[in-house]
């Protein structure tokens, strides 16, 4: 991205007005750590949105409200009953990147390797977008295709709402990288909830290695009514077989498909353990 000018607004109203005036030339900038990956030589005016009081984590009635410009490092360091994003955050890139990158930046434009889209789909998060009216967009709709489509006319992602994990619910997250701080080759998030001893609901999402992060309905369906075991999870993961995987960095397409199945089964095992009351 070619940045030819910058603006530093002090609140959401000013930021929205600047972005509206700039139109397509305006580029909201949070941490800015992904700018190098954005192609295009058309001149852009960066609008620094990190000073709009959109950072921080609060909790109301079992739901965490995470400001859009909350740094990944703050997700990493947050600790609360039912909070699971710390485990996701600490696997993202390096500490220097986590100190700059924001949750909103990770999901306002989805890069193929991004981790939080799959996590927020599995957790059924809701995105708050400030426009002339504030919109609440559920993850399934928000991530159905590139979310930049929601930010046309000075609209800004302001917060992400994530329900705390409760009793009888579990979350699992796995990703594979070439080196510890590398980009995801495959990234998987799994949420399950139990009725009695059986799985009554499941949301599994997968990213990287596939064209765009998405829920995998076949796997979810295969889990309903089942009592968790390594075998059940391996069997459910075979439902990925219909998806087309693309290898990268020395990994064949076939190996990536195999890797995805292993990671789904592992994430499910973690989710099951948590739902059964294991300490994270």
């Amino acid at each position, binding site marked *: 991205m*070619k*940045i*030819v*000018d*910058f603006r*530093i607004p002090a609140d959401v109203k000013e930021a929205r007005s600047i972005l509206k005036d700039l139109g397509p030339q305006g580029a909201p*900038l949070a941490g*800015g*750590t992904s*700018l*190098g990956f954005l192609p295009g030589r058309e001149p852009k005016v*960066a609008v*620094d949105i*990190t*000073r709009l009081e959109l950072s921080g984590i609060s909790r109301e009635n079992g739901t965490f409200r995470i400001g859009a410009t909350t*740094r990944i*490092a703050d997700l*990493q360091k947050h600790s609360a009953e039912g909070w699971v994003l710390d485990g996701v955050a*600490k696997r993202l*890139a*390096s*500490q*220097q*990147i986590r*100190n*700059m990158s924001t949750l909103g930046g990770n999901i306002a434009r989805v890069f193929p390797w991004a981790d939080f889209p799959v996590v927020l789909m599995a957790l059924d998060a809701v995105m708050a977008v400030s426009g002339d009216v504030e919109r609440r967009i559920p993850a399934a709709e928000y991530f159905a295709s590139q979310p930049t489509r929601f930010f046309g006319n000075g609209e800004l992602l302001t917060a992400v709402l994530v329900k705390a994990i409760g009793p009888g619910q579990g979350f699992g997250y796995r990703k594979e990288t070439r080196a*510890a*701080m590398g980009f995801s080759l495959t990234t998987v998030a799994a949420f399950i909830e139990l009725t009695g001893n059986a799985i009554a609901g499941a949301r599994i999402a997968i990213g990287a290695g596939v064209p765009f992060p998405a829920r995998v309905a076949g796997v979810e369906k295969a889990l309903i009514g089942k009592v968790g075991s390594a075998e059940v999870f391996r069997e459910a993961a075979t439902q990925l077989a219909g998806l087309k995987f693309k290898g990268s960095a020395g990994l064949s397409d076939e190996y990536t498909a195999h890797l995805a199945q292993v990671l789904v089964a592992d994430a499910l095992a973690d989710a099951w353990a948590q739902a059964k009351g294991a300490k994270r």
Partner: protein
Amino acid sequence: MSDLKPISFTLNGESKEFLVSPDEMLVKLLRRSGYTGTKEGCDEGTCGACTVILDGRAICSCITHAFQAHGRSVETIEGVGSFEQPHPVQQALVDEGAVQCGYCTPGMIMAAKAMLEENPRPTDDEIREHMDGNLCRCTGYEKIWTAIRKVIGADGKVPNA
């Protein structure tokens, strides 16, 4: 060529004003302003040689635009310790012989300093998490690890190294 614009930030405790190009990275601004202790390595946020502290957090100055520092506080290696009175992290690196070519060292020191100021008694896992963005291609990390653990008063043994 974009027009230069004024910005200001606190650099090592002193208020400073700069004229910057909108696409100029913080590391370039620092180095052309004489703060050459901050090193340029990979230029893509991978190696950590360019680490500075921005508002208390270690960041890569090679992927941070200079204007993002406007109104904030930046600390570079020039603001840390002196020959007469080195910072405890600097002294520990010297004592352990944890410096070979030295190129990664300023970044290592800034990352360790930011970590210790936020959390003076990090666990081994926390040290690993916080120092994971600083690459060293000489030492194999063991001596650096030992030095940081000595600063916090722990023994220098490397667990599961």
